[in-house]
């Protein structure tokens, strides 16, 4: 297999988060419009300046990216729809980067957003995937809580992880979220509260779960020349990977697709895990964040529990992790949950994260994980971003 080309010359700019709301009467179209406008305003651009557009959303039905072009008045020469849930952000970014490199588009807007009405989560769950309908939901209808409970149960058995270990991830993210004025969770969380939370699907308890919210995220991809011409702070893409349906021979998911491509990721970026100033994992449940710490090379398989015991995962700690509070504390805005870590990482390496800024952050690792199609997450992605020194 030939080595993939670099992403040189690509700039990532104008990260924007439309503040989440627990419930909102607005539609996905509205939320995506807000994020796009926010990102364009930050870059001093008009919708007419955009000639590439990619969107990720679960609640646009019956529309797709196509309907959105007419709905939002965009005339683009490059259009994509990335339906990969928690892996969407990085995947949208790497495709947009290639489009810009190849000259297929000059300015690509990458957007994700979802509505959340009172009924939305229940309805979404009921139509998630064919395998889920055929072979998962008939068994207690625990939704993703039950799927991750199975992975967590097995992970605890195999590697001796305790609930406290997962609690460390949730508690430190809450501490980070308290610095993020837009986080949905506003109250501190102690390890005692985590441990005594009500059970949802054993061993998953309340604070292992994300809060479904409405919200949206966006950023722009353009050439470095374009970003510099406009005087925009930008991040560059040192490496990026995606993988789908990896390790299908594993009877239960104890590792994700990152393990297949991780060597190439660090090779492209010419760095090691130790060079990262911060890490944004996909955190719909703490157990999957712990697996990412292993699969992304911060520790060996099974050493995740010891790793979180040995490190401080808060913004000022020695392993700053999910600095905006992540989905666990800032909320899961549908497919925007696949963007939250990426958009925050862009802010971090461009020194624009404000209250959640990690001091002197230059290099960030972002990973995505998505789509429990049946018994495991099918999509994985990761990217290394760098800000100008």
């Amino acid at each position, binding site marked *: 297999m030939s080595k993939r080309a670099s992403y040189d010359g690509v700039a990532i700019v104008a990260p924007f988060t439309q503040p989440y709301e627990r419930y909102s009467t607005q539609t996905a179209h509205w939320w995506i419009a807000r994020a796009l406008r926010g990102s364009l305003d930050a870059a001093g651009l008009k919708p007419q300046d955009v000639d590439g557009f990619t969107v990720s959303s679960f609640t646009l039905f019956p529309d797709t990216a196509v309907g959105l072009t007419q709905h939002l008045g965009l005339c683009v020469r490059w259009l994509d729809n990335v339906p990969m849930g928690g892996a969407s952000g990085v995947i949208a970014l790497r495709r947009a980067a290639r489009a810009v490199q190849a000259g297929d588009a000059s300015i690509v807007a990458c957007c994700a957003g979802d509505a959340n009405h009172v009924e939305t989560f229940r309805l979404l769950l009921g139509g998630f995937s064919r395998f889920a*309908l055929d*072979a998962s939901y008939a068994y207690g209808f625990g939704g993703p809580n039950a799927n991750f409970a199975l992975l967590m*149960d097995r992970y605890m*058995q195999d590697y001796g992880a305790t609930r406290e270990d997962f609690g460390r991830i949730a508690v430190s993210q809450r501490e980070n979220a308290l610095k993020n004025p837009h986080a949905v969770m506003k109250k501190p969380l102690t390890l005692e509260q985590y441990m005594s939370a009500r059970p949802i699907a054993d061993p998953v308890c309340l604070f292992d779960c994300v809060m479904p919210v409405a919200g949206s995220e966006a950023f722009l991809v353009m050439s470095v020349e374009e970003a510099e011409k406009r005087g925009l702070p930008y991040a560059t893409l040192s490496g990026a990977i995606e993988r789908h349906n990896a390790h299908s021979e594993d009877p239960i998911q104890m590792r994700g697709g990152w393990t297949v491509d991780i060597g190439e990721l660090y090779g492209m970026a010419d760095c090691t895990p130790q060079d990262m100033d911060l890490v944004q994992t996909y955190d719909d449940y703490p157990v999957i964040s712990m697996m990412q710490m292993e699969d992304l090379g911060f520790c060996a398989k099974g050493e995740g529990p010891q790793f979180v015991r040995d490190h401080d995962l808060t913004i000022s700690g020695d392993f700053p992790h999910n600095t905006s509070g992540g989905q666990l504390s800032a909320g899961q805005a549908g497919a925007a949950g696949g963007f939250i870590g990426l958009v925050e990482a862009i802010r971090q390496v461009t020194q624009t994260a404000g209250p959640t800024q990690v001091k002197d952050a230059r290099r960030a690792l972002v990973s995505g994980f998505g789509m429990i199609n049946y018994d495991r997450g099918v999509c994985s992605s990761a990217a290394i971003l760098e800000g100008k020194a």
Partner: protein
Amino acid sequence: MTNPLSPPPRKNPQIRSVVPTQPLEIRSRAAVGLTACAAEGRFALQTCVECGTVQYPPRDACCNCLGVELPWRDITPFGELLAETTVQTSVNSYFRERAPWRMGSVKLDAGPTVLCHLHGDIEPRARVKMINRLDKAGQGVIMALPMERTPNMEDDPILRAISCDPKLRRVLIADGRNPNAPALVKVLKDAGATMIFVGEAESWRPNPNRALMPDAEILPLDVTDTASVKELAGEIGGKVDILINNARFLRPGGALARGDTGWARDEMEVNYLGLMRLAQAFGPGMCARTADGVNSAVAWVNILSVNALANDPSFGSFCASQAAALSLSQSLRGEFRSSGLRVMNVFVGPTDDEWHQPLPPPKVPPAGLARSVVQGLRDGLEDVYCGDIAKETAARHAENPKVLERELTMGGAG
């Protein structure tokens, strides 16, 4: 260990009955293959004809070689529990009401990993035995059981929810004059049924079966008389959990053996319209009580000739009435679906009674039929084939219905 079920207290009529809710019913067409196997109690999975890969969840192409010929084949029903959870809350009302609900992930010896219901007596990481059953939505689901029997294992709440076990339930047998009625009463009593009502038409006529059914309560019921059926439903309709329609009128011969339509009319009155009258009188009440606790309404049983599938001209007119009843039973499945009330058809070959006296063996004895009914209820089946002739006829019908039709309609020349 499973806690044994205890008899429910008398129902308080002032308390609202629990309204039936359902697990998710929607499935892909491929996945309904699991349901078809569950209807007959088979543990089978899609198997690729080209490469032999056993796969699950059901697909439209083989995940190993992209072959598209994927018949459901019986496979060895064993595996190892990988992980488990107990779902404490759900967005689905059916499971929310029944939480906690234990489920898990099992690696089958045959290859695939399945998500399934878990019996309460399974230890972590244990070897397990798999069964395939119909749930309250009438769709196939997989459940893991302990390898060895455990005390009261059939009382496990999940297993109970996907079977129609007569234990602690009340049963109505429609025709106390049918030679199979005493055997049915006996096996149901042995299976733990708490009350057994038996219908009897024309009570002024002697009924030799009466003395053989000391555990039953004999009540007037004539399935050819709408008023009689309605009256009994008014009296006991609220406490019939299982209804067994064993009423049958049978005379030999097809169209030409008879001079008129008299017997044919009687056959339709009992075998077809009788079923309809029972359904109209008892069906709505049973459908309303399918979530009513330990003694909830659970199953409707029809005893049909296997020649409902393909006509045997020596009983040609009778078989036509059986085909009509079979067709109506399919309609009832649709009409009962939203309640979760199961329709189980027990197909029999010639039964050991006066109207089949000249036929050679094998014939289905009353006790054998009764055992099939109870086993079918315990396994929550929809289609039971009782006896060797019924099994063989069904197998031939499944292979090629036209060939079976031709075999059954020999002219007898040479």
